[in-house]
């Protein structure tokens, strides 16, 4: 009994000493190799764009997964400043630095919807239905309220019962096209965010 105890004690001591001296010699049971995180942009696709927020119009680089091959759904995973842009030279403010979350916001709209008169919620519709219904609304209102001449008999050709407010964050091309279309329809009730 006593012998056993002694053996046990020696065993424990030896094991302890043994393993600790092994460790002292550099042996470690978990070869914990320190490695840095992989550079996450290594094989992403880079696209040059412009920050949509303020009018500094910083150049941004959009980094997306995949190489735009046919079967790959492109997903933007990172955005940073474009160092070539002479104004921002690669920098971005907190808004610009957070652009990724605007693109991927949970509040992004994905489908056309309509809220019927008096309804408490949205109803998903298709683009065809949306375009048709809107076009019919426009035509009905324009046909009913178009003014060809004013009281003095001057040709005025205006329609002022449907109004348009345009973004000042949309591209020049869509701003221009919208302007062309609404003036072509005779609209005078139009304004842009730029006023505010």
């Amino acid at each position: 009994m006593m012998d056993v105890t002694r053996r046990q004690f020696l065993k424990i001591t030896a094991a302890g000493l043994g393993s600790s001296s092994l460790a002292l010699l550099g042996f470690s049971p978990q070869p914990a190799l320190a490695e840095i995180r992989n550079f996450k942009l290594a094989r992403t696709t880079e696209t040059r764009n412009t920050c949509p927020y303020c009018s500094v119009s910083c150049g941004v680089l959009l980094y997306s997964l995949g190489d735009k091959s046919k079967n790959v759904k492109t997903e933007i995973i990172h955005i940073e400043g474009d160092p070539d842009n002479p104004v921002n030279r690669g920098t971005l403010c907190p808004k610009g630095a957070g652009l990724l979350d605007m693109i991927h916001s949970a509040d992004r709209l994905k489908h056309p919807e309509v809220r019927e008169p008096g309804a408490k919620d949205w109803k998903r519709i298709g683009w065809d239905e949306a375009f048709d219904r809107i076009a019919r609304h426009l035509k009905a209102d324009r046909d009913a309220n178009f003014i060809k001449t004013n009281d003095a008999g001057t040709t005025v050709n205006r329609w002022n019962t449907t109004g348009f407010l345009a973004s000042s964050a949309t591209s020049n091309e869509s701003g221009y096209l919208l302007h062309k279309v609404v003036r072509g329809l005779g609209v005078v009730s139009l304004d842009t965010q730029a006023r505010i």
Partner: protein
Amino acid sequence: MAWQSLDIQRRSATTTPAPGARQATEVAKLIDISQCIGCKACQVACMEWNDLRGEVGHCAGVYDNPGDLDSQTWTLMRYTELENNGRLEWLIRKDGCMHCQDPGCLKACPAPGAIVQYANGIVDFHQENCIGCGYCITGCPFNIPRLSEKDHKAYKCSLCSDRVAVGQSPACVKTCPTGALHFGSKEAMKDHAEHRIADLKSRGFSNAGLYDPPGVSGTHVMYVLQHADHPEWYSGLPRDPKISPWVGIWKGLAKPLAIGAMAAITLASLFHYIIKGPNEVSKETEKEVENETRS
């Protein structure tokens, strides 16, 4: 490891030296508080690059949001409104890991390889080796590392070691709109700081200076302060940070002492046994007992 300066210089809980023949350029981030507008672009860029999204919290009556560093917030703007000589100053400090040359976290860390210091001076946490004990917090003179509530690992700024590894600057530095953040070799950063300090002095900040505290053998994140004589004005930046003497004892003297003592006791016991032999009940006593019992 993609870049030789990311060779490891020091490794937590490791008693033998790392390969060190190559001479790497030491890097540093310079935070020029006099050019900082506290816009938090660095904060957002840090979260974006490192895929961190903390809680959307509340306004607590200050601009500091989130309220403190945490596992999802590796850098944070801290705001101080100071009235000095009748003029208001808004001192805004970007808080985060200072990447000490003598890192208290690394010294305190018990897990081999959970904290490393690269040859370029960056101190990095490797969460896969982290055991979540929080000793790094105990060791840090700047109160930086934070344990995650979710995975119980410690996190802090990595100085974007992944970006630096491929020759890029940290995300915060790249984004900084006003040029308050700079990144380069530590020498270059000190030179730049010198220019900035001269400019500040010409604008009436006679005590402008560089914060590169010698108590931790210098840092790889340095500040240009308008009031270098009062670092504590900047949300309590420590005046003379060093690794706490308690941590020093704990991770210094205590270790060999304790091991020595235990080894000594073990060896003393062994040799005592060998020399003196077991203390057995003597035959006489046995006899006396027999007699007594019988009587």
